[in-house]
C-alpha cells in the first residue's frame, strides 16, 4: 500500500527535475563556456579588463609593429608574429617567464595572437592567455588605448 505513493512521488520528482534541467543547463552554459575558454588559455573582454585594471598581466600586441605604432592597448608591448625572432630577445630581458601574459590581435578572426602565444609557450612562458576579442572589442568598449 505504501509503495504506490512513494513511486508516484519519485516519478513526479523525476518529471519535475527533467523539466527544469534545460533551464538549468542554459543557466550554466555561459559559465561553462567561460570556464572552457579559461582552460583553453583564452580570456574574454571582462577578464582582460580585470587583468588590465589589476596590473597583474603584461599585454602583448601580436600585430605588425607599424600597426602597434599607430594604436595599441595602453601599456602593451609589441611582439609581432612576423618579426617575433627579432623582437623576442628584448622582450625576454624585460619579462620573466613567470609573468602572466595576455596576447591580443586585431579581432577574433586574426590568428596572430594564438601563434604568438604558442611561440611564447615554446620559449618557456607558462602563463600565457589569448584575448581573442582583440583591439576592436577593446576599443569598442571604450577601454584605454594609446599610440
Amino acid at each position, binding site marked *: 500500500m505504501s509503495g504506490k505513493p512513494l513511486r508516484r512521488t519519485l516519478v513526479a520528482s523525476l518529471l519535475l527535475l527533467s523539466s527544469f534541467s534545460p533551464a538549468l543547463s542554459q543557466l550554466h552554459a555561459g559559465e561553462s563556456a567561460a570556464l572552457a575558454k579559461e582552460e583553453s588559455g583564452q580570456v574574454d573582454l571582462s577578464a582582460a579588463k580585470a587583468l588590465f585594471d589589476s596590473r597583474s598581466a603584461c599585454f602583448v600586441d601580436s600585430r605588425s609593429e607599424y600597426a602597434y*605604432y599607430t594604436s595599441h592597448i595602453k601599456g602593451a608591448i609589441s611582439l609581432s608574429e612576423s618579426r617575433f625572432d627579432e623582437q623576442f630577445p628584448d622582450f625576454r630581458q624585460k619579462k620573466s617567464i613567470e609573468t602572466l601574459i595576455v596576447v591580443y590581435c586585431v579581432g577574433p578572426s586574426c590568428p596572430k595572437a594564438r601563434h604568438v602565444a604558442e611561440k611564447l609557450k615554446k620559449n618557456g612562458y607558462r602563463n600565457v592567455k589569448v584575448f581573442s576579442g582583440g583591439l576592436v572589442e577593446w576599443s569598442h568598449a571604450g577601454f584605454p588605448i594609446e599610440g
Partner: protein
Amino acid sequence: MSLFNAKTPMTTISFSSALITALRLLLGAIFILSGGEKLLDLKYFALVIAEYQILPSLFIPAVALLVSLCELLCGTMLLVDLFSQISASVMLSLMAIFIAAMTNNVIRGLEHDCGCFEFLAQWYGLKEEIGIGPIVRDILFFILLLPIALLGSNRIPWKKHKG
C-alpha cells in the same frame, strides 16, 4: 603639301615636349607628396620597411630616410625641370626595387601595409596593403617615367642655353 611637311616635325616636337612636361609635373607632384609624408613620419615608414623582411634591421632607418629624401628631391627636380632626365632615371630604379620587393612578398604570402601613399589612409581611410593593385600602379609609374628618362632634358632652367 610643302607647308604640311614643314609643320609636321614642329608639331611632333611640341607634342613630345608637352607630353614630357605634363608627365614631369604629374609625377613630380606625386613623388613630392609621397616622399614628404614619409619624411613627416619616418618611424612609421621604417616599421613598414621592416615588415617586408628583406633588409637587415641595422640598415632600415637609413634606407627609410634615403628613399623618402630620394622621392622628395627627385619629385622637386622633376617639377622644376632640373636634371629631370637623371631624376627620372633614379625614380625608375626606385620603382623597379618597389615592384620587385612587393612581388617577392606577395609570392611569399605575406600581408602587410605597402608604405606607398599613407595620406590615402589618413584622409580617405583607404588602407593600402601589398598586392596586385600597388604593383600595377608602380609598373604604370615606371612606364610613365620612361619618356622623361629617355627624352627629357638635363638642363638647369635658370641658365641660358646657347642656340
